[in-house]
Every structure is written in C-alpha cells, then in structure tokens.
C-alpha cells in the first residue's frame, strides 16, 4: 500500500500498532554477525517448525498475525548485543534471554517456556563474576548502564520489515521534518550538537549547513557504511538490524540539504547488510517513502547501494566518492571541501551510518532531549564494539562521558580468564592504546583525543598482559602499509620505513636511539600525508611508545618480549611444579615440540619450538612461562 500523505502514514501506523500490540508473545532470534555465524538462522528455523508442530500460532512476519487469535511472533532481529553468548533468543514480554541456543533446544523452549511458562535455567547467561544466572535484560549486568539511540531498534524489531519499523514509530520523524523548512531541520540538528560518529566528530548540522550554502543545483547525500576498522562492527549491526532508521535519517538529510540522489557505500565484507538494505530500499520505494513527492511533499529522493571492493582507504570520504564514481579509491587533498565539491564535483553531505541513525530521534524528541544525554561537547550516546580479552564481547551503546572503567569492568564483565588489564585500544588503526592509569577517562571525542587516542568509529579492543604493545604497533602498521593507496610519499614510503624499524625491534635488533628516530619519522608522516589514513597512521606507534615505553626498552635493551609474543626474542619453558601433565599442550603444539607422559611434567624442545605460544594459550594451569 502506498503511503502518500502524512495522514495515510498515521492511519497505517495505528493499524500496525494495534496489530503489534495484539502479539501475545514474541520470540526474538538474533541474527547479528556473531549469532548468525554461530547458527542463529538454524535456531530460528527449528523454533518455527517446533512451534507449528505443537499447534502454536507462530508467525515470522507481522501482517499474518492479524488472522490469528493468539499470535506468536518468531522474529529474526539484528544484533542483541551479547555476542559472546550467542546464538541469543529473547522472549517478550517475559524478558527471558536464552543464550548459546542450539536447534536441539527448540523442543524444550516450546514445551517448557512457551507452553509451560517455565524458565530453562541452563540456557540463562551466567554472570562470570558472581556465577549467578540472569533471567533477562533487566537482571544482566551487561545491559545495565546502556542507553540506546542509534541501536534503539536493533535487536528488538524484525530486521527486514517496514511494518515493524512503522509500528514502533518509524518515519514519524520524516513526516515531522517535512512540515518544517530545510533551514529549521538543520537548525535542530545543529542545536542537538550531534557530531560525526565515524570518528572525526565534525558537527553534523554544520556540515549540512555548509553543503546548503555551497553553490550548485545538484546535491548528494552519502552514507558511509565502509566500516573498515578491525574490531568494529557497529555500523554493520545497524545496517543489518535497523536498516529503515538509516534510510529515514538519509531522507531527512536530503530534505534539509535539497538532494535528489543518495548513496550507501557498504563494505564488501558485509553481504547481509547489502541484502537487508536492498530489501529496505525496495520496500520504501514500493510504499512511496523513496521516489517522487515523498509523503505528498515536494521532496523527490532515491537511494542507491554501492558495494565496496575491500579497500580500507575507501572509508576516507574523498576516496569513497571516487569509488562510487567507478574509479580507483584514491583520496584527494582536503583543501577542496567535499561539502562544496564532492561526488561528481557536486556539493555532497557524507555521514556515517550511526550518525544518520541518530537523526530520526533528534527530530522527534528534539535537540534539548539529545543534549541532555552525554557531555556538553559530545552530546548523545556512542555505540562501541567491546572485543578482545574481555568476558562479554559484544555491541553496546552508552552515553558519552561514561568512564572506560565502567564500560570494561561493568558492562564488559572484566578481563577474560581474570588476567591483568594492560591496555584498551580505541579508534582502530588511527587510534591509540591507553593504559590502566587512563581507565577513569570519560569516553567522549575530546577526552580520548587529549589522551593520545581517538574515538574512531567505535571499536574498543581490550588487551591483557599477554599482548605485546610493540607487536600491536607492528600489527597496525602492517595493516596500514597494506591498505595505503600509495598516492602520497609520506604515507607510502614513511609507513614502510616505520614498519621496518618496529619489525627490527620485534626481532631483537633494535638499537639505542631507535625510539627517537621512530618518533621523528612518525611526526613527519603525520604532517606530510595527504589524507586521514596517513595523518593518523603513526598514532598506534606514538601512543604505545608514550604509554608503554618500558616495554619497547625491554625489547631494545634486554632483547626480551615481556608479553612473550615476539618470537625472535621469546623462549617458553614449562614450569615443572605447575604442570599437571594433562597433555593439552602436547596435542596443541603445531610443530610437535612439546613432549611428555600423562601426569608427568612436559618439556619443550627449544630446537623445534617455533615460539607460536599455542602451548601457553591452551594451558589451564599457567605452567608455560617466558624465560
């Protein structure tokens, strides 16, 4: 049915809301990146089959629920957050969160919970600290202290359904925005203080305003979904879990800046995001929410999807635009602003997925509501991916200004295997590593930048004492070296040299004065590079030297890697007292360097050992030590 006026929209919404309210119970099955990989779709299939076999009125879409007396909705949703414990199944209104669900559990869930109203204890998540099991989101520490704006619908509603989005108030922000002038919409966004969630933190309203002021009669809106930072998958989750919210944000932007064509640039590695966005765009076109005279207004706007080709540099705005045009994704100098001359040299607004996802709520609830959350200079919330050596790996959203300690030890549940905290890495390859002395830092754009890291897109990688900071610096340099487009010399050749110097240190060939030379070269790369990739590339090196200098010195002076990662200067030894002779390391050793009898202490043959650390990874008794 076409939604061609605000009145039709409200009529349809009223009907859908009633329909939605009539759903007796909903079984939300997570299909986020983690849960999908561990079998979420199979769980969904098994649940639907089991329910129908047992005579329950199970539906997988909203519309057919109308014909049912006691409908149950078995919904595929986007990421529900607690990726560590997937596949997740959330049952409402009971608020029961089942974790680690296998298709084989379907019979029990249907019989005991859905028919018998009983909670299956063994499927509840166990709190790693207290050992207690939490029944639902309300009792699980991971979900406390979070606040959802960009992730409001993700994990809660049917991921592919326009009906579901409309039922929770979708496109009311667009209807509202269309009653206002473009200027008033921009003013609202300016007042909200919304800053670009892709990492730069540039004022969104300000960007829109500059675009409007730029001369030209054709304008473009681009959504940057080329989320390339390793350890970050927030945008993927938003595009997969709540695609209509992103589209609504873009359409509002199109009204504000006067664009007729929009693009979403999606990373090559996210096929499900492409699929769901394609479905969402088609549904919006069919409903008249994209196309000519949207909701009966003068706005004509359409969106196309552009798939990336697996190049990290294409996350850079000017490179991304070149890529959409069908070219090699090389950035250009920024003295020509892309808001003035961007895609096809026309004024262009480019915002990140999460930024667009924040826009609808700002319009419906107002700028004052948004500035009431977060810190004065970084209002609102930020989505993060909490990953690494942490108990609760997952997708979270917290108010800006939340201290790192609360994020890591509260929501994150603390360190994996209780190992000591060493560093948290934010900002991806452009960011830095912060030590425990910075744990009370409030997370916002400016605090992180002052501390020598940056917000970045939102990956938060937690590291323990078995992570070598020199190796981390080498890792990011190797990544950037590979991804540098090669257009400018400081980035192309400077990173190669920087990487060689760090590699030398990892090999135990570092010399006194190396760190000073590295710092000097790093500064030159920062100043001399053309685009953001090169300008920020030395950050992982500089921040680790600043915060973990003694670890670099141990490599250079003592030829020793304290974390036991750098192979050339690491020797493993099995502590005969601690070893129980369990044979785990004997089985795990790739080259077969560990030998020993059951219940006898094992021994590593240094001549065969490749220092890969596999033995230490599998040892449950901490018996593998570095010499």
């Amino acid at each position, binding site marked *: 049915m076409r939604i061609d006026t605000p009145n039709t929209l409200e009529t349809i919404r009223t009907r859908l809301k009633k329909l939605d309210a009539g759903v007796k119970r909903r079984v939300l099955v997570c299909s986020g*990146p*983690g849960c999908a*990989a*561990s079998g979420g779709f199979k769980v969904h299939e098994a649940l639907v089959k089991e329910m129908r076999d047992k005579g329950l009125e199970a539906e997988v879409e909203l519309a057919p629920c109308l014909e049912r007396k006691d409908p149950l909705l078995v919904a595929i949703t986007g990421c529900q957050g607690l*990726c*560590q414990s*997937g596949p997740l199944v959330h049952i409402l209104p009971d608020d029961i969160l089942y974790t680690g669900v296998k298709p084989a559990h379907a019979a029990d869930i249907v019989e005991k919970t859905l028919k018998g109203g009983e909670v299956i204890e063994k499927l509840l998540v166990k709190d790693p600290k207290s050992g207690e099991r939490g029944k639902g989101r309300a009792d699980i520490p991971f979900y406390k202290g979070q606040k959802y704006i960009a992730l409001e619908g993700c994990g809660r509603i049917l991921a592919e359904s326009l009906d579901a989005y409309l039922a929770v108030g979708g496109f009311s922000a667009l209807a509202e925005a269309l009653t206002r002038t473009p200027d008033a919409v921009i003013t609202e966004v300016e007042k909200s203080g919304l800053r670009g969630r892709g990492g730069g933190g540039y004022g969104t309203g300000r960007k829109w305003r500059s675009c409007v002021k730029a001369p030209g009669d054709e304008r473009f809106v681009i959504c940057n979904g080329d989320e*390339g*930072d*390793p*350890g*970050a*998958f927030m945008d*993927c989750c938003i595009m997969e879990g709540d695609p209509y919210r992103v589209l609504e944000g873009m359409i509002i932007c199109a009204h504000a800046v006067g664009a007729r064509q929009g693009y979403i640039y999606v990373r*090559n*590695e*996210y096929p499900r995001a492409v699929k769901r966005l394609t479905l969402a765009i088609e549904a919006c076109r069919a409903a008249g929410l994209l196309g000519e005279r949207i909701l009966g207004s003068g706005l004509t706007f359409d969106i196309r999807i*552009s*798939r*990336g*080709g*697996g*190049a*990290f540099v294409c996350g850079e705005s000017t490179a991304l635009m070149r*890529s*959409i*045009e*069908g*070219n*090699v*994704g090389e950035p250009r100098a920024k003295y020509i602003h892309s808001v003035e001359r961007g895609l096809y040299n026309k004024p262009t607004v480019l915002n990140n997925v999460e930024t667009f996802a924040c826009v609808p709520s700002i319009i419906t609830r107002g700028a004052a509501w948004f500035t009431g959350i977060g810190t004065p200079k970084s209002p609102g919330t930020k989505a993060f*991916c909490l*990953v*690494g*050596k942490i108990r609760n*790996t*997952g997708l979270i959203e917290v108010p800006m200004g939340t201290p790192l300690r609360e994020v890591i030890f509260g929501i994150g549940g603390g360190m994996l295997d209780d190992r000591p905290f060493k560093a948290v*890495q934010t900002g*991806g390859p452009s960011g830095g590593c912060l030590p425990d002395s910075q744990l009370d830092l409030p997370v916002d754009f400016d605090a992180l930048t002052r501390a020598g890291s940056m917000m970045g897109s939102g*990956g938060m*990688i937690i*590291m323990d004492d078995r*992570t070598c900071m020199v190796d*981390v610096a080498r*890792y*990011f340099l190797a*990544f950037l070296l590979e991804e540098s*487009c090669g257009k400018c010399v400081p980035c192309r050749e400077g990173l190669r040299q920087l990487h060689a110097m760090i590699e030398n240190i990892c090999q135990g060939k570092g010399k006194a004065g190396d760190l000073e030379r590295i710092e000097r070269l790093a500064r030159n790369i920062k100043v001399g590079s053309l685009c953001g990739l090169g300008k920020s590339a030395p950050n992982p090196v500089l921040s680790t030297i600043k915060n973990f200098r003694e670890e670099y010195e141990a490599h250079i002076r003592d030829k020793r890697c304290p974390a036991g990662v750098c192979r050339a200067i690491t020797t493993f030894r099995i502590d005969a007292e601690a070893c129980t002779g369990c044979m785990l390391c004997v*089985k*795990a*050793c*790739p080259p077969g360097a560990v030998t020993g009898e059951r219940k006898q202490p094992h021994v590593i043959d240094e001549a065969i050992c*490749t220092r*890969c*650390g*596999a*033995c230490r*990874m*599998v040892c449950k008794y901490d018996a593998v030590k570095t010499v």
Partner: protein
Amino acid sequence: MSEVKGGIERVLSRLPKGDASVLVHAMQDVQTEFNYLPADAVKAVAEHLGVPFSKAYAVATFYKAFSLTPRGKTILKCCTGTTCHIRGSSVVIEDLRKGLGVGPGETTPDMAYTVEAVNCVGACALAPVVIAGDRYMANLKPGEVMKRLKEG
C-alpha cells in the same frame, strides 16, 4: 573458452552500456560469475562501459576483493582483525600452512582451497575465526583448524 564467453555475455547483459560509474560493480559481477577476473572478461567489460582497458586494470588491481588468478573451490578467509590477531590467528594460519601446504594468497594445486588473510569480518566474539565458503569455524584452538575443516 566458450564457457567464459557465455559468462561474459550474461554479465554484460545486466550492465548499462557506456556507464563508466558501474565499473566496480561490473567487476564484482564478473568475480561472482567466475570466482576471479579472467582477462577477457575485464577487456569486455571495459569495452562495454566505454572505459580504457588501463582503467579497468587499475580498478581490478586496486581493490582487494578482486583476483586476477583462478581461485580454489572453497575460499578460506582467515580473519586477521585485531581481536583475532591477539587471540592467535597467526597460529591458525600456521596450522593451515602445515595442513594444506599453502599460505595466504595461495591456492592448493588441486584447486580445492584458496587461503586468504582478510580484514576484520565482525565476528570478534568468535575469534579467531576462519570462514570456509560460508561456514564459520569459530574459537579455533591451536592445532584444531584442519580437523574442523574436514568435519564439513
């Protein structure tokens, strides 16, 4: 050869003639069709879209997703994102090298597997992870990957 020809025709029939902006898209279609970019297909696409062959070649070699050489039946994507790295992806790659005799960027002589080291796939909760075709092998312990691969 005729197989390649037929494939090229299928791809070209879906592409607007003379529209240079769909070049990257077109290459993706070619890669989906053949699992790599045959030189003849790149030439045909360039001609069809009206771009110089040199530009098509530049695009084909710039983006990581494209391969100019045939790849194995199953692609083993070894995630080397930061989380996988600190949780031991290098050991997994070593295990594969030992088991298959090939490393990242290489294909087994029988064309069964191509090993690729890829950037973060967003499955950090399952690190270290290898995607075999569309099957995720998660939380790989040292020495485990070959066994899991054979389980199918």
